[in-house]
C-alpha cells in the first residue's frame, strides 16, 4: 500500500508540473473571494450560500473528472480507501497543488455481534487541508462566523460531483475550518452507495 501512496504522489507531482496553463494564485483567491461575497450579498442567508457553493462545486466536479481521467489515465480504484488516496494525492495536487492528508474510517469487518457496532456501515475518509489557496487573505467577519458559513464549500461540491460521475454517491462536508477558528480544515467524505448504471431518462 505504501508504494501505491508514493506512486500517487509521483503521478500528482508530474501532472502538476506538466500543466502548461497555470493561474496566479492571488488572482484565483481574489476571484473566489469576490464570488463568495457576492453570493452573500445576493442570498443574505449563510446556509443558502453554503448550498449554492456546493451546487457550483458539483457542476465543476462533473466536468473536472473528465479532465482528470484524461490526463492521469488512472484506472478504476479498487476500494473506497484508494479513492481517498487518489483524490488527496493526485486530484488535489493536480488542480490546486496541495496535498491534503487522508485519514480513513472504514467500517469494521462484519462480526456476528451486530448490536455493539456503533460505527456506520458507510466507509469514509477525512481530508485535512493544511493550506488552502482559496482562503489566502480571508478573515471572516462576525456574522459570517455566527451564520455558519463554510467558505471553501465549493470543494465539497467538486468531490461529490466528480465521484458521482464515476458511479459513487457520496456526502462531502466540512467538519472544521481554520477560518472559523478551528485547529484545522477538514472535509469528511462518506460513501452513500455505489450507483448502478442507469438508462438515461428518455430512452425507451
Amino acid at each position, binding site marked *: 500500500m505504501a508504494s501505491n501512496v508514493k506512486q500517487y504522489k509521483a503521478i500528482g507531482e508530474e501532472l502538476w508540473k506538466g500543466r502548461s496553463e497555470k493561474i496566479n494564485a*492571488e488572482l484565483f483567491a*481574489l476571484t473566489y*473571494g*469576490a464570488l*463568495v461575497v457576492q453570493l452573500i450579498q445576493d442570498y443574505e442567508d449563510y446556509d443558502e450560500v453554503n448550498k449554492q457553493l456546493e451546487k457550483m462545486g458539483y457542476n465543476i466536479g462533473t466536468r473536472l473528472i473528465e479532465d482528470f481521467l484524461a490526463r492521469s489515465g488512472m484506472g478504476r480504484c479498487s476500494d473506497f480507501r484508494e479513492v481517498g488516496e487518489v483524490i488527496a494525492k493526485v486530484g488535489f495536487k493536480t488542480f490546486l497543488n496541495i496535498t491534503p492528508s487522508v485519514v480513513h474510517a472504514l467500517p469494521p469487518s462484519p462480526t456476528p455481534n451486530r448490536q455493539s457496532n456503533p460505527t456506520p456501515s458507510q466507509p469514509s475518509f477525512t481530508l485535512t487541508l493544511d493550506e488552502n489557496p482559496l482562503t*489566502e*487573505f*480571508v*478573515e*471572516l467577519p462576525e456574522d459570517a462566523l455566527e451564520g455558519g458559513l463554510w467558505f471553501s464549500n465549493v470543494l465539497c461540491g467538486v468531490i461529490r460531483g466528480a465521484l458521482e460521475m464515476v458511479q459513487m454517491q457520496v456526502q462531502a462536508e466540512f467538519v472544521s475550518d481554520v477560518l472559523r477558528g478551528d485547529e484545522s480544515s477538514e472535509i469528511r467524505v462518506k460513501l452513500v452507495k455505489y450507483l448502478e448504471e442507469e438508462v438515461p431518462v428518455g430512452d425507451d
Partner: protein
Amino acid sequence: MSHHLFLLSPSDTPLYSLSHQSTKQGASASSPLGANLPTWSTSPFSGRMSALAGAPNTAMQSAGLGGGAAGGQDRLNALRMVANASLDVLENVVFRDNGMYLKGLDKFNEWTVSAFVTAGNMKFILLHEGKNDDGIRGFFFEVWELYVKTMANPFHSAHTPIRSPVFDHRVRASAKRYL
C-alpha cells in the same frame, strides 16, 4: 513620547486609530500627554462633533485634565480635531507633491502631523512629538503593507472600519519597533 495613528478611507471616514506610547527616547518632562491614554479605540466618530463642542480648546495644555478617563477622552478628541484640521493642508500638498510620505505636514503646539497617502487615496495620519523621520517612514511603510493585506480580504471594502485583531496586533508590534 506618544504617537497617534489614524487611518482614513478615501472618503475621509476613519477606519482605525491607535495610540502608542513610545519607550524609546525620553519624553520631555513637561508634556502632559505622558499620562496613560486609552490603548486603541475604534469608537465611532459620530460622537466626535458633540465631544469637540464640549472639549475646551486648551485641553492639551492644561495639565489638570490629565489622568481622568474623561480628560483622556477629551484629549483624544482634541487630537482627532488636530488630525482632521491637517487634512486640508494634506490635500494642498498632495496636489503639488507626488510622494507618498509627507513629513512635518502641520504643527499644533508641540504636535507634528505627518501623513502617508497611498495611491488609492488612503490616508495614514500620525500625530507625534519631536522628530523621528526615518522611524516614522519605516512605520508608515509597514502599516501600508499590513493595510494591503487587509484590503485583500474579500469581506473588506475601502470603507469598512478595520476591526481585525490580527491587524491591530501587527500594527502595535510595528509601532514598538519603529517609534
